[in-house]
């Protein structure tokens, strides 16, 4: 940070800075509010919630809802909690995010630095594909997975997520690389560097911020997907969200709101972790950017 700050072009006065901090903190308040409700209610006994005290701090503090959501809540016929489903989600999300990000980076690189006739139309086609409603995907996708023999497997789920993620990842990288000086690529080409060499040595090192954005997006979307996970995974191989959904959505059973909130926060942990860890690379990207100029 210290290195970077000497490098900035924008200077602001003390008054403006104070104002900026106030605005930023007000937004923190706005963003944190629902989380407050969730956390507060996740450490109360159920009777306190249904008794009407949804907004107040717990008068009897308990962490039992958390323990229950994690390991003993009923999400199927057996009281397993969310725990066993974590690994299912991880083993689906990691390859799906990796593959779609790599494809997106390469596509973005090609569409901006190796342009050919009709490339814009291709990009337009890929962009428009982001808008396909999931309602119409389900049935034909099931048929294709059935034919491929991937129905009920993690590999099938990975395929589905890569297919519907690649449009977005291409979008991110294409729009980021569009601003990257093409002269550098041309110069490297003249020096005899090949397709992959240029990508690896020249573009990738300064792609930090956009990789972060793309990974955040893909990770969140794939981690939180419910419909595909429920439809294309087997019962035991179902991802987290299916288990969370089973925990939370009951139509004619008793609703344990405190366990629901605890479960929702637990289920979001890996994504939150990604945000915090990946967020560091925003700053790295800045430093890389200042070198490249």
């Amino acid at each position, binding site marked *: 940070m210290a290195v970077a700050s000497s490098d900035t072009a924008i200077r602001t006065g003390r008054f403006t800075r104070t104002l900026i901090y106030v605005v930023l903190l007000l937004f923190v308040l706005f963003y944190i509010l629902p989380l407050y409700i969730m956390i507060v209610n996740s450490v109360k006994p159920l*009777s306190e919630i*249904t*008794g*009407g005290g949804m907004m107040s701090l717990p008068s009897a503090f308990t962490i039992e809802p958390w323990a229950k959501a994690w390991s003993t*809540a*009923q*999400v*199927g*016929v*057996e*009281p397993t909690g969310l725990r066993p489903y974590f690994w299912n989600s991880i083993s689906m999300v990691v*390859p799906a995010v*990796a*593959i779609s990000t*790599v494809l997106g980076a390469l596509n973005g690189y090609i569409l901006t630095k190796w342009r050919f006739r009709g490339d814009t139309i291709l990009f337009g086609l890929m962009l428009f594909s982001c808008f396909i409603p999931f309602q119409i995907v*389900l*049935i034909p*996708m*099931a*048929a294709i*997975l*059935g034919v491929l*023999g*991937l*129905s*009920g*497997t*993690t*590999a*099938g789920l*990975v395929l589905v997520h890569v297919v519907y993620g690649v449009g977005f990842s291409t979008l991110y990288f294409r729009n980021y690389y569009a601003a990257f000086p093409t002269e550098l690529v041309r110069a490297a080409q003249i020096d005899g560097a090949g397709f992959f060499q240029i990508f690896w040595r020249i573009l990738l090192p300064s792609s930090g911020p956009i990789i972060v954005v793309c990974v955040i997006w893909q990770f969140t979307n794939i981690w939180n997907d419910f*419909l595909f996970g*429920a*439809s*294309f995974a*087997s*019962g*035991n191989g179902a991802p987290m969200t*299916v288990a969370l*959904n*089973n*925990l*939370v*959505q*009951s*139509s*004619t*059973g*008793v*609703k*344990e709101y405190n366990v629901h909130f605890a479960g929702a926060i637990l289920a979001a942990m890996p994504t939150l972790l990604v945000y915090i860890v990946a967020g560091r690379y925003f700053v790295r990207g800045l430093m890389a950017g200042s070198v490249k100029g």
Partner: protein
Amino acid sequence: MNKVIRTLKLTTAAAAFSVSAAYAEDVEVLHWWTSGGEAAALNVLKQDLETQGIGWQDMPVAGGGGTEAMTVLRARVTAGDPPTAVQALGFDILDWGNQGALANLNDLAAQEGWDEVVPEALQFFAKVDGKWISAPVNVHSTNWVWANKSVLDANGIAVPETWEDFVAAVETLKAAGITPIAHGGQAWQDATVFDAVAMSAGGPEFYKAAFIDLDEETLGSDTMKEAFDRMAFIRDNVDDNFSGRDWNLATAMVINGEAGFQMMGDWAKGEFLNAGKVPGEDFLCFRFPGTQDQVTFNADQFMMFDQGGTVSQEQAALASAILSPSFQIAFNKVKGSVPARTDVDGSELDACGQQGMKDLAAAASSGNLFGSMAHGHAAPASVKNAVYDVVTAHFNGEYDSETAVLELVDAVSIAK
């Protein structure tokens, strides 16, 4: 990259192998019973099968009162890999049966005498062309009223017998500053109330003509307008914050004494019991005023998917276990509903449960057992939802009663 793809291929092959291996002697069951009590009750079934050496592949998908599970089922059938048994409701079962996707359980049914013990109105939803295609688990009835006994006692209110009694009781509570009716403003809850109100306003013939036969004249009749007027009365006597509220929170209002009555199916009992309340002492359960002889029901069943033309031994064992008296009692004790067969001993159930069994048997034998419109046992899903649209719009003040009647006729004819 190459390495990733290669590993992917390997895992795929391994997964495909393990899946086919696991299916050999297992039953796979798709259901949406995931909340504490019901899931635990289903576990009884699982253990029962395990003692017979049959494995249970659990496939729970909750949400939307079974909608999510039905969506997933479509994907599974399209992929050519339907589960062994699937929890389903009313017309969904008939739809799948009519597509020829379900197994023929007639041999088993004959052997175990299902025809004699399952009420006829329920058999309608378990058979297609005279063939048993699914195994009923329970019967819920939806025309119940739940009341806080101490609130009623404190205001000198006896259990209302007629609509007029009910109006008087509501007025008394209102005057006493208590919310008379606890209600959650969600389409299905509005419609649940409407079921009972329509039955009470027009009687069983009217109910049947309007919601089961979908007779246009009845749908557009003055009696229907009267039913909507009564809904408007109910709307005037719920609190301001009813809209969007979960039904459990409405029940909690009755439990906490903030409200007098709630009209809800028998699953509401679970909330009372969970809060440590005793039927008859802390809370009362009675039929909606004017529908004492009738039962509007919905029933959970497990439809059995065709596994290549024959009913496998595992599938038969599952169906047989579902209809066994011991499971029927164990399950329904927890669920709040009553057994789907009328010949089991209900002495283990609580007062409300026993009342429910008695009512069901009486209604079944006197021809007063009708499928619930709100819960998809009177007309197909498209019609049910069309009725939801109108009832909800009226309840939220979008239509007056006269318009609602006209819209109802229209909506039903479009959806038919």
